[in-house]
Structure formats: C-alpha cells, structure tokens
C-alpha cells in the first residue's frame, strides 16, 4: 500500500493505482470523459487534470500512477481554470441541441458544465459542421456534431467486443467516428457503446425519442435473458419499462451486457402480456381473476395423482419452484414433472463474453429443485404419456419470454394433446388463444413484479425484488400454489418504497414526441 494525499486528505492505495482510480476509490469528484474503468487509457479528453506537488505542469490523472507520498490536488485555481477551458474546448463546436437530444438529463457535458463550467462561451465563430443521423448499424445512430471524440466506443469495439467496426476518420476538428463501408456496427454488444458514450452522439434506435430520461425512474435487478444473469438497471415509469442498462458486477458481467438482453423489458410491458385469466370449455370462454381460475384448477388437482403432469421452464425463481414442486409432490401426488429446455441444440453454447445459449435465468435453480424432490422424468416420457393418455391434466408454467423459445408454437400444439391443459405464463400468444378443448390460462407475474432468487450458470444466487406492477392481479407461482389450495393470498407484494403515485409523478410524456420514422 502507498500513502498519498488527495486534496489534502491522506489516503492509502494499492501499488500501481492511477490517480484517477485513487480519486474514484475515495469518492472524490474528478472531471473526465475518455477514461472508463473497463477500457484502456486514451488520455485524450485532457479533463482529469491534476496538480502534483513538485511538478510545474498539470498532469492527467488517468495516465499517472500514484507514488509514495504524492500530493495531488484537483481543486486548485490552476486546475479549475484548466478544466473549465478543457470543457469549453469540448463545447465550442458542440451543437448545444440539448432540447432535442436524447442524452439530455444524463449528459456528461451538461453535468460537467454545471460542476466545472458555468461561464459564457466566447466562441463567436461558426461551428464545425459534421454528419448527423449516421446509421452505424441495426441498433445505433451517430450524431457526429455532438461527438467529443473521446474514443470510448472505438476502444470498446477494439478491446471488448473485439469486432473493430468503429474508427475515427479524418483529422483535427474534422474527425468523425465512422464505420468502414459494408461493415456496420453490428455486434452482439453494440449498445454498450451507447451506454459509455458520455454525450448524445451515440443513441439507441430502440430508445431514442421515446422518453425524456427525467420522466423515468430506475431500479436494479437481474437480466433474465440468459443464464449469465447480468446485473441490470431497468428504467421505467407507470407506463412500463423503457430500457435496460448494465450495472457493474465484477463477478458476473463486468461493465457490460449484450444487446439481446436489452430486450428483456419488452415482454414485460402490458402490450405483450396475458392480462386476465380465462377458462375455455366446450368452446366457451369465461374470464375471471387469476386467483379464481387457479382456485378452480386446485380443486381438481388435489389428490389427482399421476394423471397430472407439470412442465416448467427455467424462467422462475428458486422460491417458486420449491412451492410448486412440493405442492405437486405431496398434495397432487405426482412425480411427473418435466423440464422444458429452449433450443436444446444451442443450449450449452457460450459466445465467450456474456451471452449463453441457455436463455433462462434460473435453469440451475430448476435442476437443483428437480433433484431435491427426486423428479427425474424425461421429456420423451411426457410425449409418450400424452399420446397414450396416461397424463390427462397438464399444468405448464412458462416460458416468460416466448421469443427465446423458438419451438414455442410446436410445443403448444404438442402439449395441447392433454385432455385438460392449464397454461400459466406472463406473455400472451395467439397459439394459446387459439387452443380448443378444455384450457385454463392464468396470467403470471414477470420478473419485474416479484421477489425471489435466480441461480446463474456458475451457481451464483442473485435476488430480485419487485420494481413496478404492470399487470394487476397476475400471480407468482408461489401465489398460484396458495390459490390452488384455496388459501387467501397474502398481501400482494408491493413495490418497496415505490408506491404507484411515486412512479413517474407528474408528466410522463414528452409532448413533442417525434415519430421514430424508418428506424
């Protein structure tokens, strides 16, 4: 350990620590754009200037390693003046189009201007013109005039995704980020470039112009897109979820997440949800609450024994598996519990960075629960049992996101051979709506509306908690089991510290929302 002094405060840091890391570790504010803890050092924004005692020249904190006894200051008049000018250099050719910029409200330029700037610009000359609305790839759009050329996105594609699509073209204040002809920014991690872009230069086609960020709240949870279980932050208001961003976790996902994981907000929003319970019998559909429907199912299940089967996907929490498996084992009296695996041929695959072929957040939790209860039935036994009629009532839970179960429709048709089908899921589907025969559909809560534990591919347990409520009356599997038993529900889990009124109080709409055009 080395001793050094930051703004007069003596601190200890590990050998090899850079000054900027020392500031971060000790939670002392320091201006910067190009430095990112997950990328190599570029040293180009020249904003993290510090004064080191004994050195007449200001140094950049990102590329200077702390030495024993070093006295560093980033609050001196000299540094403040340098940072102010550094910021002005960033802004003189910036279009200052904050009113129409998606980054407004979470922009590094705005933040640092409030902290270190607050001056009147002396730039009276014409600004440099550059390309706007550059289509970099399927998910990302570039506005070169807003870009401050910090090179974070370029370094990301060089060092993390290792796809090298981006480069800086031209020189001086004509320099622009760009792609080579015929090689767009099209990798599985491209949206990370939008996250790390400190300004509004790179925006997500999916999110741009949809919501002002100050109308959104955020909460941390776990991505359910695959068995990696990246830590994420969902941004939402009372209309639902709008986007997902990664949260740093050194042991799971580092700083990043994949583009497909960004879609985990889509299937929990109201437009893709199963909104109420339905009992279809003799061609007639009866609508009711999920609780009522589950209670009726429970009456028939009790003691029904081995004529009942249960199909589960890896979408649910450890607590839910425990509840439903013990119910089926002891109160229904069946051991015919089956594990529905999505795309079995790529189930074990891994892209080397984060994305796994197993598109379930809790396969490991499910497998552990099956073992614990001694359920060892194979899928082909289910197929046989359905054709011989030895299983008459089939209860299915899942999948939460049909997109990642390419065989969904095929499976629905296969499982519909059961005389009575009880399908519990959070997502709506035409395949389920079109089912003939005796079918009960029960809406389930999504991962965003319940608490519980997911065990990722490496056996790491990560807990989730309710963020917001999107479908009223939907149940978790634990609650379904209570309803099977006819027990009144415990108080529904409310969103801790986020009452309905609090979520997106005031205006939630950008009244000047533009059409997203062709994107």
């Amino acid at each position, binding site marked *: 350990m080395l001793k050094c002094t930051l703004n007069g405060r003596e601190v200890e840091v590990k050998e090899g620590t850079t000054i900027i890391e020392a500031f971060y570790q000790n939670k002392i504010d320091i201006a910067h754009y190009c430095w990112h803890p997950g990328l190599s050092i570029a040293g180009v924004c020249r904003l993290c200037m510090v004064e080191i005692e004994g050195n007449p020249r200001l140094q950049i904190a990102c590329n200077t390693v702390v030495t024993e006894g070093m006295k560093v200051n980033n609050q001196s008049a000299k540094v403040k003046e340098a940072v102010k000018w550094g910021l002005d250099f960033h802004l003189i050719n910036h279009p200052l189009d904050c009113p129409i910029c998606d980054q407004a409200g979470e922009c590094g330029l705005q933040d640092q201007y409030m902290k270190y700037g607050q001056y009147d610009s002396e730039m009276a000359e014409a600004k440099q013109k550059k390309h706007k609305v550059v289509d970099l790839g399927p998910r990302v759009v570039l506005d070169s005039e807003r870009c401050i050329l910090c090179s974070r996105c370029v370094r990301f594609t060089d060092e993390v995704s290792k796809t090298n699509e981006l480069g800086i073209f031209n020189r001086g*204040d004509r320099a622009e980020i760009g792609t080579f002809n015929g090689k767009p920014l099209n990798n599985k991690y491209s949206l990370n470039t939008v996250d790390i872009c400190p300004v509004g230069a790179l925006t997500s086609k999916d999110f741009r112009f949809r919501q002002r960020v100050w109308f959104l709240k955020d909460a941390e949870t776990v991505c359910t897109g695959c068995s990696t279980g990246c830590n994420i932050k969902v941004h939402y208001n009372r209309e639902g979820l709008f986007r997902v961003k990664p949260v740093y976790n050194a042991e799971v996902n580092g700083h990043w997440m994949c583009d497909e994981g960004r879609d985990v907000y889509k299937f929990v929003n109201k437009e893709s949800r199963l909104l109420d319970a339905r009992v279809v019998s003799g061609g007639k559909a009866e609508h009711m609450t999920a609780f009522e429907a589950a209670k009726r199912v429970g009456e028939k299940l009790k003691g029904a024994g081995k004529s009942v089967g249960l199909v589960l996907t890896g979408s649910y929490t450890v607590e839910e598996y425990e509840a439903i498996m013990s119910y089926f084992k002891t109160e229904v009296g069946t051991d015919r519990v089956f594990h529905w695996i999505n795309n079995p041929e790529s189930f074990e695959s891994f892209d080397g960075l984060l994305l796994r072929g197993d598109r379930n957040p809790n396969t490991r939790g499910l497998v552990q629960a099956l073992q614990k209860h001694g359920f060892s039935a194979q899928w082909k036994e289910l197929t046989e049992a359905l054709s011989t009629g030895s299983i008459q009532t089939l209860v299915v839970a899942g999948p939460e996101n049909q997109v990642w179960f390419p065989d969904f429709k095929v499976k629905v048709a296969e499982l519909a051979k059961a005389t009575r089908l009880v399908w519990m899921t959070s997502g709506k589907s035409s395949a389920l709506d079109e089912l003939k025969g005796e079918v009960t559909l029960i809406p389930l809560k999504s991962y965003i509306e319940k608490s519980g534990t997911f065990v990722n591919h490496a056996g790491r347990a990560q807990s989730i908690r309710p963020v917001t409520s999107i479908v009223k009356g939907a149940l978790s599997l634990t609650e379904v089991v209570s309803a099977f038993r006819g027990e009144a529900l415990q108080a529904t889990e409310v969103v801790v510290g986020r009452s309905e009124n609090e979520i997106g109080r005031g205006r939630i709409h950008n009244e000047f929302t533009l059409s997203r055009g062709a994107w």
Partner: protein
Amino acid sequence: MAESKYLTEHYGKPEYQTLEGYKKLGGYQVLEKALKMQPQQIIDEVKASGLRGRGGAGFATGVKWGFLPNNGEPRYLLCNADESEPGTFKDRLMMERAPHQLIEGMIISAFAIKAKKAYIYIRGEYTGPAAILEKAIAEAKAAGYIGKNVLGSGFDMELDLYIGAGAYICGEETGMISSLEGLKGQPKLKPPFPAVQGYLRKPTIVNNVETLAAVTYVIRDGAAGFRKYGTEKSAGTKLFSISGNVNKPGTYEVPLGYKLMDLINIECGGLKPGRKLKAVVPGGSSAPVINAEECERATLDYECLAQMGTMLGSGAIIVIDDSNCMVDVLSTITHFYHHESCGQCTPCREGTGWMEKIVHGIVHGEGKPGDLDLLLKIADNMKGRTICALSDAAALPVLSFVTKFRDEFEYFIREKKSKVRGGQIYAQMHA
C-alpha cells in the same frame, strides 16, 4: 567565421550520391572503424560529443540512447525523415546529396544501440529523395554494408525505407511509430516512452536524419574533434534552412553559436534593397517569432534562443521583412496547424480551429475588439495540455505574434485593413 562545410563538405560533388563516389571520398571507412569498437564505446563517444537531436527538440542523443533497457529485447532504430516543420528543408538536401552519409550513420548507430532492424520513415511528398534513398540502400545491401554479418563483424542489420502519407503529425516520434505500425498516425500516450516501448511495443530510438549523419563524424573525429565547432552546450555544426525575404535563401551549414545576423547578411546576401528586417522565425513555424531588435542579439545555439523564449528547433529560419503583414503570416501559420492537428486531444483539436477562425476573421475585416485577448487565452490553455507538442507548436506562434506585433493586429481590427499592405487582398498581393 564563415560557413563551415563539415557534414556538407562534399555536397557539391554529384558523385557523392553514389556508393562508388561516396567511398572514393572517404565513405564507409568510419563504419569499419566503428565495427571494431564496443557498442558502449560508441554511445560514450556520442555522449561526450554533446551531439543534440537535430530534429527540433535538441535532446542529447547519447542520453536518449542510454534510456534503452539493458534486457536483450529486440530493439529498433528509426530515422525520422518526415521533415515537415514549415520552413525546414535541410534533411531533403542531405538525403538527395548524400544518401550514403545517412546510411553509414544509421548502421553505426544501430550497431551502437544493438538494433538489428532500422527504418527510414520519409514523408510522402519526398518522392525524389525516397527514390535516391531506395537506390542507395540497394547499393549498400549489395556491398555488404547492410544485411547479415556486416563487413564480417558478426553484426546483422536490416534497413528499410518507409514512405509516409504526408502528415505533419507523423514527424512526432510516437505518431511516426503509430504510422509505421500501420495505424492512424497519431501520437501515443507517454509514458511509456519509445525507448522503453516503441515500435511494436519494443524499445525504439527515433533520431533525425541530420543527427544520424552526424554520428559518423563524431566517431571519425572523436568527441573532441566534433566539439571543434559550436559551443559548450551546443556542439558541432548545424544545417540551417533559410527562407523568406533574403537574397540567397537555401540550406547553409554553420557552427552552432553563429550570429543570426551574420547568417542573414553574409551567407544569405542580406535583405532585398530598401527593405528592413521586421522579424525572424528561428526554428520552424512553431518557434516563437523574434523581432528585429532581438535578431541583433541572437546567436544560433540552443541556449541563446531558449533564453529569448524561442527555440532553435529544426533550424528553419524564416526571414520576414517590413513588406509583410504579420496578421497575414499568422493566418497562414494558424491554418497550417488547424489542418495538421491529429484531433486526438480536445484542446488541440478544437483550439487550432478556433484560433484559425479568429485570425482568419481579422484578415477578412471581421475582427472584434476582444479577439486578441481571446486568442492569447486560447493559446495559453492549449499549451502543455496535450499528448504531444503539436498543441504547443500551434499556440506559441499565436502568443508571440500577438504579443510582439500587437499594434499590427489592433490596427487590422480597428481599420479593417492591413497596416502594411493597406486594403489589398492578401491573395492578390502574392499572386
């Protein structure tokens, strides 16, 4: 003392360009001597000679060589022939007239620092010198001066020519290394310095053409012999490129410490009749300008010019007489740096353009009262804030021009016309 032909002794003889002619005039004899020495002996001799880098920074060559780690890692010698500082054309002359002088110096230097691979990085515009060098390298290879077991000494050495694409920034040593590596020619963040991690992340020494050529003379005459010319801290002779308003512009070799006015008046034949000296840019366009009064006192060595707040730089002397408008001159200089900034570091990328726009505005009669103070503030905040020295190179002329010739700038802003050339348009005057 008049012009001293030391490095340029045989430059007037066309045969000096060929291997045969070069050898006849004593060429490659020093190499034979050097190969019999210990590499460390050569380094010590260069250190003792006080030879300083002739490219611009004037860093002691022997000290630079001493920064190489002693770990047996492969290392590289790069010759910086990307001569692009405006006003500089001495390396071109050397490569055209005496390609083998450079090659011999490079082989000796590579032997001294134990580099088995050396490159000459030449600017793209130098197609003529490049062709001459190519031919000379081929000759030297055929004669066994380059290749395996040089002259039976057991030393292996490869030398290749690399032609750049003509960017000023590739003359900065790490920018040059990036370019040589096939990357965009942008300076690299230091530390690590090239001597520790340079070309292909291996220890690398980058020296200017004139520096490497001078190494031969240090070995031939010994440190003491080399020091016969020059001053204590600025040893040897130096080639100066003189351009601008003199009767005989060109490249002249004089000992360091020579009087600037003597060079202008004796070697260069003085100014045009009836003209008065107004200013001199003594070390390439990035060196702060000095006025006529300072010129009287200036001697051409590292110390004197540093004392005057300017620098010897690459030895490019731009002479400006009283027919020139300093606003026009600065306009040209700011345009150059705006065009050449690599765009990596924000202060330089944005500042060079901003300064050009302001000066350009003044030249076009759109100057505003606060412009000069703003220019000084911008330049001040570009200085010492970036990865390489291009930002400083752009800021220093602005600071010195505006400070020393403020009256001309103020006149232009106030009267919307030049104090020197009146309302005439710059372009028409120089057509």
